[in-house]
């Protein structure tokens, strides 16, 4: 039984990683062939770094992802606090439904719906093209917001209600109690939300495709345009770099997770020790 599950795990991993491994190997291919490896070279990496359009797209993607992540995290955290305090059952249900819409709807519908509105409003003002960086930023904030809210809201619900009350009893103003007690309690949720928003924005193609103007190209859109024609292994070099960046980020976040877990454990032990003493 144990060997059977090992073999199964290995097969799944081969299925998941074989295509990526092939991209990696052929990015170092000397020739243009995608099936015969003729020799090792950094040729395609050099080509990639000479491609100003792709480099511009990388910069655009980062600018967009950072802006969208920051704005959606601030707005989403505030929204989670507001939703948490919402007493009216119907208002709460309405909020939950609206928040769920961008997550349930296929990306293509979210993209089309925003595009239709932008085009309509643009035409009202007589603009020839109404799609640009601003429309893309709006779209990205919109699809990131629900993920931020869903990360922060559970943390608010798990928080001990008596904590801010205790702070106020001890003379904190409500605002100070919120900033000094509630915010640190929900901080892990806020950080996870921020990271999620950032990666979602970085990775999005479908919604960006419908809401981007001609002038503004993100990396996924650049990849789409590159793969429209016959592709040079330049794109493989790009994929390889992305792979290693992701690997690095994931390992880093795992490390941070472990460290926070350890810190929490240590703090808890100290607290317990104090209680006993």
């Amino acid at each position, binding site marked *: 039984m144990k060997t059977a599950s090992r073999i199964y795990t290995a097969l799944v991993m081969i299925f998941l990683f074989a*295509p990526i491994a092939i991209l990696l190997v052929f990015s170092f291919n000397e020739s243009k062939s995608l099936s015969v490896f003729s020799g090792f070279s950094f040729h395609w990496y050099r080509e990639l770094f000479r491609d100003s359009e792709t480099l511009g797209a990388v910069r655009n993607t980062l600018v967009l992802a950072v802006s969208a992540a920051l704005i959606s995290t601030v707005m989403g955290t505030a929204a989670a606090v507001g939703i948490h305090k919402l007493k009216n059952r119907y208002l709460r249900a309405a909020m939950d439904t609206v928040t769920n819409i961008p997550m349930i709807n296929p990306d293509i519908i979210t993209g*089309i719906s*925003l595009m239709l509105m932008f085009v309509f409003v643009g035409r009202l003002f007589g603009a020839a093209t109404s799609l640009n960086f601003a429309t893309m930023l709006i779209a990205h904030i919109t699809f990131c917001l629900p993920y931020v809210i869903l990360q922060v809201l559970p943390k608010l619900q798990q928080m001990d209600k008596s904590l801010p009350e205790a702070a106020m009893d001890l003379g904190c103003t409500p605002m100070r109690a919120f900033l000094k007690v509630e915010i640190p309690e929900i901080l892990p949720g806020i950080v996870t939300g921020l990271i999620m928003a950032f990666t979602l924005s970085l990775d999005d193609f479908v919604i960006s495709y419908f809401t981007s103007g001609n002038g503004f190209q993100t990396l996924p859109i650049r990849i789409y345009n590159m793969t429209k024609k016959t592709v040079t292994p330049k794109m493989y070099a790009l994929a390889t770099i992305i792979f290693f960046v992701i690997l690095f980020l994931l390992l880093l976040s795992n490390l941070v997770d472990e460290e926070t877990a350890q810190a929490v454990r240590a703090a808890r032990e100290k607290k317990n020790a104090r209680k006993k003493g």
Partner: protein
Amino acid sequence: MKRKASGSLALVQRLALAPYSAWSVLFIVVPLIFVAYYAFTDLQFHFTTENITRFFTATSVVTDESGTREVHTYLLIFMRSLKLAVISTVICLIFGYPFAYLISKASERTQSILITLIMIPMWMNFLIRTYAWMTILQDTGIFNGFLSLLGLGRIHIIGTESAVVIGMVYDYFPYMILPIYSVMAKMDVKLIEAARDLGCNGAGVLRRVIWPLSLPGVISGVTMVLIPSISTFYISQKLGNGKFYLIGDAIEGQYTANNLHFAAAIAFILMVILLFGMAFMQRFANKRAAV
């Protein structure tokens, strides 16, 4: 004094919701109304049901690489999208469910390593993942090279429905595993032990204990694979050579041709169908949970 201060805090907290409320109405609700508005109007924004009837009656002509023209009605295109998406979802479930179970049974360290490994391809852009399969499955690609090395001869797979299904399965496989795993990891082992103590055999435990408890994970996994598969357009373009025109291709094609009203109509119909499907699945889940 204190009451006044806490009153102002309550006000601040209520105001905290204001930007999001405005945002979600403006950029979530209103755009969906625009989909319906475009779907039911013509170019001069006069009311018409023509776009909707066109979906059920009109045909779209697809010219593939070899120059053969194929004629489809949009309804048929939708049925094909549904068929390929369901096949992909079932394959993901059949292979993903046991794998999620295996992970949940491993040691804590192995669990976190395996989950990280599954997430790496998920974080790579799906365009790149799909493109990788295109190079693998080509007639002169690695897959065929491998087959002929084994003496099995070459097969033509790119541009077939199988290639599209392979792409969908590969792209969305992690989305099936992760939600099922997260439910299984939280499952109370005592329940399984109790079932065994009461004389249930392996299959019985699976059918009566593990499967019903993991159902919420299965449902969210199925939605997370089915919805993107049904609405994709890149996978069918690259792996189906544009021959397997799916509903996503239809929307994208109308968008690029600047037929915004018909694109909106297709999107509107897709949205309504998915909404009903989802409501049905939710009711099914609730009923099962009640039993």
